[in-house]
């Protein structure tokens, strides 16, 4: 078990997601930044769907109660293991009682903790990902325990990797959404000619954009949405749905983020700048 001494801002267990229940209104959930998690799981030679801790903004303080191996990835958070600084994308051997804590957020927004074999809370509807009310809680709290399996004998093939960071990237590549053709020239110009600011309202469900574009009166019937779908409200607000986003919606789906754009955005926080770029090869 991993014991939570301090909870931090928002930490949850996430795997590759909950599939096949979207027709019952269940969001996919799963890690927001798939790329960083893919690397963490690769280093630990885990299955790519192994569950990790997704650590947002301010990290928790955690005690390991079983031997294992761990690796961090994603945002840079000045993490320490027993008060000694550790780095991202490097495998560390863990002894019973080792304490992992997180300091200042340096870059990015979401950090990921993987352990050998992955975390193993109960699988509900095909996934271990936290999402209330499918799971009892939406995030870890002080005093919680997160299960994982004891691992003593593991010799990683590669103990450390250098990662080409995308944490500074600001351009989100998009393809046309189903209602793209209903946008007028002015709205198109507004969307693609400027940069936007991530609003205070940003979480695992959706990222709102601070600046608005021209309003519209497009009316449509409720229809399916995806992680990465950008909705345009009648007042001109842009809402980017993320992993816990609703599975259907009634606002025009004007553009769709690529998988890469989703994990770039997942590392952004309030006040960060982004811009949208229509990707020609996807048109």
């Amino acid at each position, binding site marked *: 078990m991993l014991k939570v001494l301090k909870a931090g801002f928002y930490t949850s267990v996430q795997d590759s997601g909950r599939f096949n229940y979207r*027709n019952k209104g269940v969001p996919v959930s799963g890690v927001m930044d798939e790329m960083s998690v893919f690397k963490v799981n690769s280093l630990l030679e885990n299955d790519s769907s192994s569950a990790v801790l997704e650590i947002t903004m301010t990290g928790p303080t955690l005690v390991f109660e079983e031997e294992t191996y761990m690796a961090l990835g994603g945002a840079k958070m000045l993490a320490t293991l027993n008060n000694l600084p550790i780095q991202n994308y490097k495998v560390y051997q863990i002894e019973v009682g080792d304490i992992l804590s997180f300091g200042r957020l340096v870059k990015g927004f979401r950090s990921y903790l993987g352990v050998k074999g992955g975390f193993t809370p109960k699988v509900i509807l095909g996934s271990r990902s936290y999402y209330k009310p499918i799971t009892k809680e939406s995030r870890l709290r002080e005093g919680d325990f997160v299960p994982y399996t004891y691992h003593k004998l593991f010799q990683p093939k590669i103990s450390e990797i250098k990662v080409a960071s995308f944490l500074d990237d600001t351009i989100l590549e998009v393809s046309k959404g189903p209602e793209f053709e209903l946008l007028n020239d002015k709205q198109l110009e507004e969307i693609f000619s400027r940069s936007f600011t991530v609003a205070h309202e940003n979480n695992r469900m959706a990222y709102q954009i601070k600046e608005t574009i021209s309003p519209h009166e497009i009316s449509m019937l409720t229809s399916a949405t995806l992680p990465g779908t950008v909705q345009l409200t009648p007042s001109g607000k842009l809402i980017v749905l993320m992993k816990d986003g609703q*599975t259907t919606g009634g606002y025009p789906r004007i553009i769709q983020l690529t998988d890469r754009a989703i994990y770039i955005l997942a590392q952004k926080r309030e006040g960060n700048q982004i811009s949208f770029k229509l990707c020609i090869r996807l048109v």
Partner: protein
Amino acid sequence: MNSPEINIKSFGVHSILIEWPNEVKEHILETILRFESFLRSDPLTDKDWEMVPSYNSLLLINRKKSIDFNSISKDINTWYNQLEDTAKPARYLWRLPVSYDLEFGLDLQEVSEKLNKSIPEIIAMHTATHYTVYGIGFLPGFMYLGGLIKELEVPRKVTPRSKVVKGAVGIAGKQAGIYPQESPGGWNIIGNCSVPIFDATKENPCFVNVGDKIEFYAISRAEHNLHKIEAEVGIYKPEKIKIDA
């Protein structure tokens, strides 16, 4: 072959959206569900395909592979033209008990004043219809119900509640529904349904499918409490009737 025309749209690299005419019509929904069932039974049996039907659209999502839009849209047209002979998917009418006690029907009095109808009249109208489930979304197990009687149309509340309880039965504009879990909400609450619409501990967490019908019937507060206990211990089974379409 006179199925309504379809329009196929690209929607990201993993999905493809099929749209029917922009209307809330039973026969359109039925065509969508027949086509979904046909795709599942023959060309797209692979478990990696997820399908989300709603009102006038069907989204096909492949969680693993990128989709070649041109080739799959050609296939979809071909498959749609073969649709006619396929069997209809099974559909059910679910009879759901609702307590319209004022303890649960927080807005009954207000709705009664706005519509100039007595509370018994409102209950009679709300229970007189077979509602069609046009979609499930917004929250796990939240059904978009069509078929509300025109006389019961009342605008959503000016100020939404920050907390609407699980099972709350609401109406707003042309829409009717049940809040499957506690959430914020702006619909007028007229009762509470003791049957849990969504239960994550069940293999099929939501017994209702898009295309099914819902009928509400009024029960007393005592019966409501009994059903609630039965549901909690898992012995309550909602009443269902197979629909011969």
